């Protein structure tokens, strides 16, 4: 009795969303199988890797990371360099310093940075805010306006501010909008419904369903990814068929495994290697669960995940 595996794609399909414009534009989503289940059906668009560039990147201390960006001063310098990173598909500008409880940089300065980057690079651009709702609202709107035509993705609209962010970013300036929720499938669905209710085309929505570094409550992320993907594919739930983007580096570089110095933890060995492996593991776990794009920081981690993706599709 020979074994014949039962393989088949699902009826449901993830939306294909285009980011960026011109030659370097990318498409995420589009598949009708679980992540990397190429034996069920070929995968249309391979998962993509974004490189995080923070306006606080000058404070990064990992030696090889610093070495990679040696000589970079402005955000545009960093972006130009990041564009050369093997495996990079898009850039993520992280405006951490806009935080009113931190450096509180002005919106005008941040917009100027974003514009300078957009003029210097051709890769698609993703914008990440400072997590302060009020400041992000203004920042997102101004950047979306300044970068019209670049087809950027703005992270993110949340249930508290989806109306203003959705209306300005997606409706007024024609950019892509991220829908951010925290490990809650019901909220994720509801937020997509609300965004669609504003007349935003589903093809302009990408989801961030919640993040965590592995070891730090990642089980909630893993199960939300599983459930969102199964709902989208198995149940053909159109309100969860948006592709998923997972910011990885912002979590992984903050945990003890990455930050503890060798003096703190002599047995653990090189701190930079630990940060790289933490990033690699978290990114791979997210991709295995269903992320269509990950945002990462270290060139070595990006190279590894790029190889990982190539080997699997």
């Amino acid at each position: 009795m020979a074994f014949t595996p039962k393989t088949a794609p699902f009826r449901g399909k993830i939306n294909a969303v285009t980011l960026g414009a011109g030659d370097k534009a990318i498409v995420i989503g589009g598949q009708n199988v679980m992540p990397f289940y190429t034996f069920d059906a070929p995968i249309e668009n391979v998962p993509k890797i974004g490189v995080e560039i923070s306006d606080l990147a000058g404070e990064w201390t990992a030696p090889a990371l610093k070495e990679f960006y040696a000589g970079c001063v402005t955000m545009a310098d960093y972006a130009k360099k990041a564009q050369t990173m093997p495996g990079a598909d898009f850039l993520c500008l992280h405006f951490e310093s806009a935080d009113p409880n931190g450096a509180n940089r002005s919106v005008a300065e941040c917009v100027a940075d974003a514009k300078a980057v957009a003029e210097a690079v051709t890769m698609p651009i993703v914008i990440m805010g400072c997590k302060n709702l009020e400041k992000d609202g203004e920042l997102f709107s101004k950047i979306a306006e300044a970068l019209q035509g670049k087809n950027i993705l703005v992270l993110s609209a949340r249930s508290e501010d989806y109306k203003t962010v959705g209306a300005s970013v997606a409706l007024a300036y024609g950019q892509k909008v991220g829908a951010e929720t925290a490990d809650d499938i019901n909220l994720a669905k509801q937020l997509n419904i609300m965004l669609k209710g504003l007349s935003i085309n589903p093809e302009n929505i990408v989801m961030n369903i919640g993040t965590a570094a592995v070891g730090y409550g990642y089980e909630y992320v893993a199960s939300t990814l599983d459930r969102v993907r199964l709902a989208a594919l198995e149940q053909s739930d159109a309100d969860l068929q948006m592709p998923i983007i997972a910011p990885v580096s912002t979590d992984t570089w903050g945990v003890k495994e990455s930050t503890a110095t060798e003096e703190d933890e002599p047995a653990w060995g090189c701190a930079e290697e630990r940060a790289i492996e933490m990033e690699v593991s978290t990114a791979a776990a997210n991709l295995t669960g269903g992320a269509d794009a990950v945002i990462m920081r270290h060139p070595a981690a990006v190279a590894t995940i790029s190889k990982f993706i190539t080997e699997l599709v």
Partner: protein
Amino acid sequence: MALKGLDIFKLSPRKNCKECGSPTCMAFCMKVAQGSVSIDKCPYFSDDAKAMLNEQTAPPMKTIAVGEHKLGGETVLYRHEKTLVNKNLYAVAVSTDMTAEEADKKLSDLQKVDYERIGERMYVEFVFVSNTQADPAVYAELVKKAAATGRCLILECWDVECAKAALAAAGKNVILDGATPDNWEAMNAAAKEAGVVLGVYAENISDLYDTVKKLEAAGNKDLVLDVTGKTAKETLANAVLVRRTAIKDGDRSFGYPSIVNLARLAKGDDRLQTAYASMFTEKYASIIVMENMTYAQALPLYGLRQNIYTDPQKPMKVESKIYPLNGADENSPCALTVDFALTYFLVSGELERSNQPVNLIITDASGMSVLTAWAAGKFSSSTVKKTFEELDIENKIKNRTLIIPGKVAVMKGEIQEKLPGWNVVVGPLEAVQLPKYMKDKEYEAAAKAAQAEAAAKAAAAPKEEVKELSFEELLATKVPEIKVVDMGVKYKGHNPESKTFVTIGERIHCISPVIRKAMDERDPEPILKRAAEQIAAGATYLDVNIGPAEKDGPERMMWAVKLLQENFNNVPLALDTANKKAIEAGIKVYNRTNGKPIVNSADAGSRISNIDLAAANDAIVIALCSADGIAKDNEERMKHCHNMLERGLSLGMASDDLWFDPLFLVVKGMQDKQMDVLNAIKLFSDEGLKSTGGLSNNSNGAPKAVRPIMDSALVAMAMMQGLTSAIVNPCDLRLMETIKSCDIFKNHVLYSDSYLDL
């Protein structure tokens, strides 16, 4: 082989004849499933049924034991469906290809990673010993060295003579990863003779399947499958297809644990192996073979594994103990929080960021978050005191400042009282505020204030000998006289024999600030107002929640019971508090005209003794079918149910006086478990048991306008399944009308056009 109690029950005679010694057929079947009773004790089980049981109840995937480790045994493809059972284990590879020095170094390095994380030992469980040559002595030599590490071994060897030599050198805790389509007969004989698990490998999945079939036919089901393919892509396909075929399609020939060998797929690339290992942790490897396991790899990989293999319904807990942070010693201040792992990580992380020495004290709160634990009575001044005693903190720490979470500021006074000599300070509401709070040393001023306050209190009220008063004395001296006020509502009475649905009004609850204040001040008005509303809306019973009431529980409860019963024609009550003395006191003054008092509530875990309390006082008890966390399936729910039923019956209770609560779950978050709850009610009902529960929990967090609709739909479905009571908000008109209508269809109430007005 674990049999499922409920599957056995389906084939049981369902006579409840008690000839087997168990009170019901269900109870008997549960015992059979647990292995404590033989199925032959029942004279009425047919032989056919017994044979069918063995066939039907074999699990889809075998559990294979190697040494102290268990592999496989999974029942679902995704952890949210139930839980994953046996975590994937790690092996590091050595080979006869290596020089002796290389192999020695690997064997020594792999033992360096060995640490504990949230109560779990993290280390490389296996050594994978690969044979690539033909001399048995050479291979046996390497195997002997590997065995000296004390770890279990996987012997990758396709040469039968080498395998035999290796087995002789290896001992018992071994997987012989050696069967192929060509050599399976000889390898099978070798594995059987040595009494070890046999690993099976083939070039493709179809040959693998055929070889397993042949081995099964030869009587060997002690197998693991090496699913490593030529590429990572092929390996993932193999791993998924094998597991999917076993679990989804029920083909047990692929129902074995699997090995994935990354040393073969990503040779020389540690980082890529980490990426693959992360994937195979989620997608179905039972053993992952690595070239190395450095700390840089282990930290994320073991962390991920611990997350993925956490039971979704049992929160991860950290050990209750003192965690000195940033070089804290006995002179550093203390901060207190609960044992929920996420809370611990968040709080300890932020405290570490403050760079201030502090002793973080973790108290046992059953793995709940701060507020949930507080509401459930698992985080109270008593539990804190217990922790302080158990950990001997008085003597271990000299500093007397104790920072408590801002969210439980209400506990400050009580903790201060229970821990004399300590200066209790309320910390920030959120963990992110901790670095600033600690750096600014805000707690120092607060601790001084607390100390001054305590001193003033002590001066004002010199210590008097507190004598424990009897209920009669308390009643005479501490319970204010009850005034009967005309609220314009009369309780219409209740016949305890009636079959109509029993609603227990939930609105007198200390979680409401108005009620909490009224209880504290013995102010009748707000309590009578809520009682009147609920009685007017048709509530059968009223629940009286007086809060944890650690201090003055008995007099509080006596007052509340008398207040409500004297004002409302002896309305029957459910007494709801974690304080047992208070329940006892309440029952002492309770009038039974309209029904027995209800003890709210017992469970199958730490609160099981509330059944004894109910039995001793001839009361009804609400019996939550849970112990440590929510039951993972109906198998477990029914196990708890029967534990409690047996305890009640053995204490002389009537089974009608145990009302089983399946624990209604919130749809937002546990949508896929709703039918389980409804089916549990059917199981209670089939055994003639009564049931109840906090039904409106299902719609928690849903919009206000939607909740009555969800609650009504659920109550109708639940009544169809046989639910006999529920704890509800009787002021929800739609819900109450639905219940009345269901009582009509169930023929519990005779129909008339005005049935809704009755």
